[in-house]
């Protein structure tokens, strides 16, 4: 039997807060920076979304549907694309219609609510499921959480919501000697199947492709496909940021040609085939259980959640934000819920990570703030305004 390749891309556009000084608190409740969003979105449209979508569409047609791919994009990203890049949304709808592209479910607001509030998490997953159904015309069957945050418990929560398949990180600390190239079961909900990211082969493209100090540079599609062929197991899960194609690896690196050639070579290769996550679960059986008790993610070396909740600034910001849930539920006001949702964007907490005290990290991971302090101060100012609005609304009742 031939080996499957599950190709998955995350497309995200974070919520961008404007520079919000304390003078504004209680006076001005416009929190966002549409100009920055538009600029960033259009940049990615040119560098990545349009050219990569065109390559995929072309490859799917040429191969009569042998090229398959999965995408996930939070609702906040879909909103921004609808607003600033309708051309890209049209192109994604076209991809959806080929039947070769599967859209997955995640949290609507790209949040870490799965770690904090089950109520809010469920709400966002439902909201996203509806959003994908209405935008792309297919109800998502598989789930993957924000930045692949996953634990047995999170698996159980989404299982209860009808997701039998979850994509997660196949980090060394959870895999041990086991290979990510098989399907696994959640020990808590045995009916739930896990697809685990092959971080080594994924990172060969996403992190190392344009790294000239890498001893495998330059990476040809031929060489890469041969590595996949040699890998043991049923399925190789290549999960990465969509921006890998044309942004993190700029066009000059030859990434787009590589990608085109990679798709073609896999289609030609008798031993390899593309699969979507849903098909993979139909075609293969889980080989074992894998227990992930502590939440993991795909971020950085540690592959844990410390980039969102690793220091006191982050815990404070997140505690203050989620403490609003009760009052918001009482009030039931859409405008407040919507800002509450946007402020949950995991990237906003991420910018407060202590890693950004190092200048190099900022260059590499693209924080709009000079230091975690700036990120925290701006965020807390915005949140203070939201808190005032919630309190005022409560007093008016």
């Amino acid at each position: 039997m031939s080996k499957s390749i599950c190709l998955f891309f995350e497309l995200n556009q974070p919520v961008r807060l404007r520079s919000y000084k304390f003078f504004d608190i209680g006076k001005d409740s416009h929190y966002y920076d549409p100009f920055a969003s538009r600029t960033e979105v259009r940049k990615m449209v040119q560098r990545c979304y349009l050219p990569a979508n065109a390559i995929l569409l072309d490859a799917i047609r040429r191969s009569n549907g042998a090229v398959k791919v999965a995408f996930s994009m939070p609702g906040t990203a879909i909103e921004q694309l609808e607003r600033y890049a309708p051309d890209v949304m049209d192109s994604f709808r076209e991809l959806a219609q080929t039947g070769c592209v599967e859209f997955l479910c995640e949290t609507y607001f790209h949040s870490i609510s799965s770690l904090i509030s089950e109520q809010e998490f469920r709400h966002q997953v439902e909201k996203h499921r509806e959003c994908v159904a209405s935008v792309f015309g297919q109800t998502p069957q598989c789930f993957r959480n924000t930045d692949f945050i996953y634990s047995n418990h999170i698996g159980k929560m989404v299982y209860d919501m009808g997701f039998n398949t979850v994509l997660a990180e196949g980090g060394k600390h959870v895999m041990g000697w086991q290979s990510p190239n098989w399907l696994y079961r959640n020990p808590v909900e045995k009916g739930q199947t896990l697809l685990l990211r092959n971080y080594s082969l994924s990172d060969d493209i996403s992190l190392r492709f344009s790294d000239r100090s890498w001893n495998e540079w330059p990476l040809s599609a031929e060489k890469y496909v041969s590595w996949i062929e040699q890998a043991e197991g049923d399925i190789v899960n290549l999960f990465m940021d969509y921006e890998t194609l044309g942004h993190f690896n700029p066009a000059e690196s030859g990434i787009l040609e590589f990608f085109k050639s990679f798709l073609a070579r896999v289609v030609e290769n008798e031993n390899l085939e593309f699969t979507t996550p849903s098909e993979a679960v139909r075609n293969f059986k889980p080989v074992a259980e894998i227990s992930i008790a502590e939440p993991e993610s795909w971020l950085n070396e540690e592959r844990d959640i410390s980039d969102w909740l690793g220091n006191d600034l982050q815990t404070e910001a997140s505690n203050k934000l989620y403490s609003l849930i009760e009052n918001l539920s009482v009030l039931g006001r859409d405008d407040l819920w919507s800002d509450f949702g946007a402020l949950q964007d995991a990237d906003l907490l991420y910018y407060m990570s202590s890693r950004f005290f190092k200048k190099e990290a900022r260059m590499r991971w693209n924080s709009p703030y000079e230091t975690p302090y700036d990120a925290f101060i701006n965020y807390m100012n915005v949140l203070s305004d939201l808190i005032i609005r919630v309190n005022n609304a409560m007093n008016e009742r």
Partner: protein
Amino acid sequence: MRVLMFGWEFPPHIAGGLGTACKGIVEGLAYNGVETIFVMPKASGDEDQRCTRIINASDVAVAYRCTSDVDEFINMVKFISVDSNIVPYVNPDEYFQAIEKMKREYSTSSTIGFGQKFNFSGKYGANLLEEVSRYAQVAATIAMEHSAEFDLIHAHDWLTYLAGIAAKEITGKPLVVHVHATSFDRGTDDMVDSRVYAIEKRGMEVANRVVTVSDLTRNIVINKYGIDPGKVVTVHNAVDFSGREDMDVHRGVREKVVTFLGRITYQKGPEYFIEAAAKVLKRTSNVRFVMAGSGDMMERAVRQVARLGIADRFHFTGFLKGNDVQRMFALSDVYIMPSVSEPFGISPLEAMRTNVPSIISKQSGAAEVLTYALKVDFWDVDTLADQIYALVTYPALSAFAAREGMAEVNNIKWNNATVKLKEIYQTLL
């Protein structure tokens, strides 16, 4: 490895930060196995000599007739009496006292000859340039007498550069000049004292290596003095907290206290602090501001506070001495250093050491080493106000900045900084 070091002052009798830094440097060098002989114009005898040997230039009889080369530069600065605008480290009170004292004590003959001693004041007084040139003459003698006892020469700030040059000319040993501040940190660009500038430039040009206390200062040395970047190296300052005890203070006010401590002069950016204070006070009443220090912009600062109508929340302490400085830090919740230009700036380190989170301007050398201080462009009053507001309003932020900041400054040690200095020496031998 042995170093002949020229300084201007050494604790306990110091008027500014230079002496403290010199003490830290000789102690750090001793820790790293480098011996130093420390020459200063006027030693009092109670200096701590455990880590260095101090030579009092006032005790040295000039035994050497200067060569024509040395004469040339000495002539350049001879007989110039100057006003005090060039004085780098002195505060107004001490300046006044120094002048008075000098009027009483100082009588001069304009030349000193063979076998004569010169009684230096060792202060930053009106005859500073003359003392600087005499110091060079005496330095030549000291360098000759002790030429077998050192391998290279290290001179601290422009006051000692001529001494360093003289010692180099006479012994032929390599010279390192250490830039703790430049003329551009004392005045504005168009108000630089050309005589001091000339000495600085000359020192840097003659030196085999120029050590700067920050990259900020390094850039000034390269761009404003035209020094070859290849020989300018940054060694960030450190600070010695040993023997300092935590102070228990009783707070009289309930509000958060935000403090500025330093000379109230143009370079320290006091007006930005005041403007930011007014902005913060518009939004919160849970805060008081303190401006500790004195200086030529003091009166203007008081008028600015009055005009803004915040005098009930903005307080002046005047010049603080000794323990009062510590007490002021201990009473503070936030420390601000909004300097327009600051070669390094040790005060935020002291604040952070006292568990006080600090906001410092990006135009300070300290910003290069302090990861956990909040940073702001000195002119960006809105952001400064925002940061002050955040530190007094969001307890998680101030607790985090205080805790991490204290851990950070406890690790900025002369023993580590001087390793780099030693490496620089080694390249010259």
